[in-house]
């Protein structure tokens, strides 16, 4: 089955990214066009100004169309923000057959039960991810078919967000004369692009350090065990620097990119960095150590918040594969060192290796979400079909 090119859009807090992905017979997706544009009107992953955000979408789409030589009218949209939550819902079924052997029908029934998650009326389910089966008292069963038991249980994790917030992002895209075929959580997209099957087996947490949010997704024994979003990102680092040294945000961003480090550099002792003079801004000298202290405090705290969330979910002891950092924030100096200290686990930067065609872009980890979204589009194409563009049937994709 030939799949048409997929356009994946991420309206990030710092920039809007549009990726066009084309898939071959083997199922691999190649990014043929990338468009980026600095975002305005988005804070902490959420739209605060529809018309400003629209400009970013239009510009990024135009750029991607030109590069991939396609015309885009339908996109997949990645969403994020502090409102994104996950809830685990258990589904249960009693095996009624005389021999008490689990049949395919039983599995379908328990899956249906598990996916019927009760959430508040103002929330929308983005993904329903099936976790592992429990056969009577024995947990962690992947394929229960043919096993003998009385009760079969399946946990399903529903990732949901506030309907209005998601609709706002969809409306921005619509105002740019584009259709939205599906909405996916950014963290899940990044995981699709970055994580290897082996890492998922060993247990791993992927941390997507974005501009406005930090998304995380943890795999334990090949199953997604924790998903979430902390509404703290690179923008907070910039804001902290701006407030610490009383400088404008754009200068703070500049100095963050040039000099910031997540770990206080012992050799930075008396070193000072110069902020060049600009219109209405005198030349300033800033202590490197102070800068590192500000950045360290923020990232240390973010990782600790994340650690406590993972601890709460009970996944911390099962992360043999360590911590993988992706997103633009992963390129901050020594951020892996800091994560290693806070989590006490090996840590490295994760690139979108499951997607081709991003070899030439600068800082490929910043494109993990958009590239992963194109891959998500490829994986869910059959479910979505041509006639049901907004139907969300995201079943079992993450198994194996």
């Amino acid at each position, binding site marked *: 089955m030939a799949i048409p090119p997929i356009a994946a859009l991420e309206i990030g807090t710092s920039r809007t990214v549009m990726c066009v992905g084309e898939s071959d017979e083997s199922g691999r997706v190649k990014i043929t066009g990338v468009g980026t544009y600095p975002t305005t009107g988005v804070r902490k992953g959420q739209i*605060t100004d529809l018309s400003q955000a629209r400009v970013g979408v239009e510009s990024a789409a135009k750029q991607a169309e030109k590069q991939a030589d396609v015309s885009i009218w339908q996109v997949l949209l990645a969403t994020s923000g*502090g409102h994104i939550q996950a809830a685990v819902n258990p589904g249960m079924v009693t095996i009624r057959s005389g021999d008490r052997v689990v049949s395919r029908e039983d599995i379908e029934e328990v899956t249906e039960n598990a996916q019927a998650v009760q959430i508040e009326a103002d929330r929308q389910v983005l993904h329903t991810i099936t976790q592992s089966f429990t056969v009577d008292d024995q947990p962690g069963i992947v394929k229960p078919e043919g096993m003998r038991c009385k009760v079969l249980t399946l946990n399903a994790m529903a990732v949901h967000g506030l309907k209005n917030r998601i609709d706002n992002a969809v409306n921005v895209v619509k105002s740019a004369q584009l259709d939205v075929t599906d909405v996916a959580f950014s963290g899940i997209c990044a995981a699709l692009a970055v994580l290897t099957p082996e890492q998922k087996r060993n247990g791993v947490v992927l941390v997507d350090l974005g501009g406005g949010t930090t998304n995380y997704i943890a795999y334990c024994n090949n199953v997604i065990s924790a998903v979430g979003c902390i509404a703290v990102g690179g923008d907070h680092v910039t804001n902290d620097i701006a*407030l*610490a040294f009383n400088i404008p945000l754009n200068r703070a961003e500049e100095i963050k990119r040039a000099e910031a480090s997540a770990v206080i550099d012992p050799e930075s002792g008396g070193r000072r960095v110069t902020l060049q003079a600009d219109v209405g801004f005198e030349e300033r000298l800033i202590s490197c150590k102070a800068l590192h202290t500000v950045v*360290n405090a923020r990232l*240390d705290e973010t990782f600790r*918040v994340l650690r406590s969330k993972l601890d709460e979910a009970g996944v911390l002891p099962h992360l043999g594969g360590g911590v993988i950092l992706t997103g633009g924030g992963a390129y901050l100096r020594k951020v892996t060192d800091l994560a290693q*200290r806070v989590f006490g686990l090996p840590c490295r930067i994760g690139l979108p290796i499951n997607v081709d065609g991003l070899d030439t872009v600068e800082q490929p980890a910043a494109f993990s979400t958009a590239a992963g979204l194109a891959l998500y589009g490829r994986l869910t194409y059959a479910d979505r079909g041509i006639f049901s563009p907004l139907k969300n049937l995201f079943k079992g994709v993450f198994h194996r």
Partner: protein
Amino acid sequence: MSQEQQSGLLLLGVGGGGCRLAASVLASYGDGLRALGVDTDALSNRAASAGGMTCLLLGGSRLAGHGTGGDAIQGRLAAQDDMQNLLPHLQGVRTVVLTACLGAGTGGGATPEIVKALHDMGIATVCFVTRPFAFEGESRRKAAERVLPMIEENADSLVTVALDDLFSDAGEGVLTDAIRVAEGLVAAGITLLWRLLSRPGFIRLDAERLHTVVLKGGNARFGFSSAEGPGRAAQAVAALRACRLLRSGDALSKANALLLGILAGQDLRLAEVGEIMGKLRDVCKSDCHIEMGTVIDAQFDGRIELVALAFESWTAAAQVEPRKEAQLSQEPPVAEAFPIQPGSKRGRGKGSKLSFGATGRGKFRDVEPTLFGGQDLDVPTFIRRGITLER
């Protein structure tokens, strides 16, 4: 388990200096005392554990047991890293007496974190902290001053001892011995106070009064003196008045409340107690609230030791009702000295917290706040953690 171990009282030394203090209290008090030392330096930990004290290494993964190198931020992070390891040692503990020497990395950085954690757990804290000698330099003095308000915010009572004030007591000793001698004296003082609490004598300094005075008294000055031979009562008071820790009697004359412990042997005479109290009343303000207690212990035979805590900011409203006879006849458990209700707000209304309204959030002033653990994460972390930036 000994009686002390059951009492719910823990002596906790933080940092190199704090561990040394705790170890010397432990050495002079005896084996029954439950003591714990925490430090980032593996070497000093080893030295302290040689004295029979349980020791815990902080920030092992961060600092590899090499200490903080005087960096309070490292001390703070190390404490945050390993706070979980502290929990098993706090089982059944209701009151922690914490000793620390401020000015350096672990004492200055880890102490506020630990005090805050203890406060959050509903454990009462009494902190004895020392300020560095003047000769240790301006940066240490500043570092110590920065940390004090952070400790004060969460500690139930804070006793600050300026090591410089001990100098006269250290005599003309060699300079390098000064710290050791001074710390020895502070440790001796804490030991005396501890005895007063745990081995009540004829006239008891009853635990609840002590609790009220200490908890509502805020910052205190701490001093002690000793005298023997004929006229020992007068000499002890004179020595106490001369004690530089009490600002040569200045703290006594300004105090609104005074907590006095008289430690003596079986030979303590009623007239001597009267003499001590009479002389002290002459020194103190006429409306000064004096709480007195005695400890009779054979090891003090022929000697009188006085230990005083002077509270300047104490207010009469903090006075407690007279205790009932029935309660007086009971032996007060040591931990009852500072009883608290878990989770209760034990703020002393002291120390002002900076409030960060819209202005502290900068770019995020008009968006929905990101809240976690009661904190607004949009406010810069360095502000919330009270980190002072090098300019």
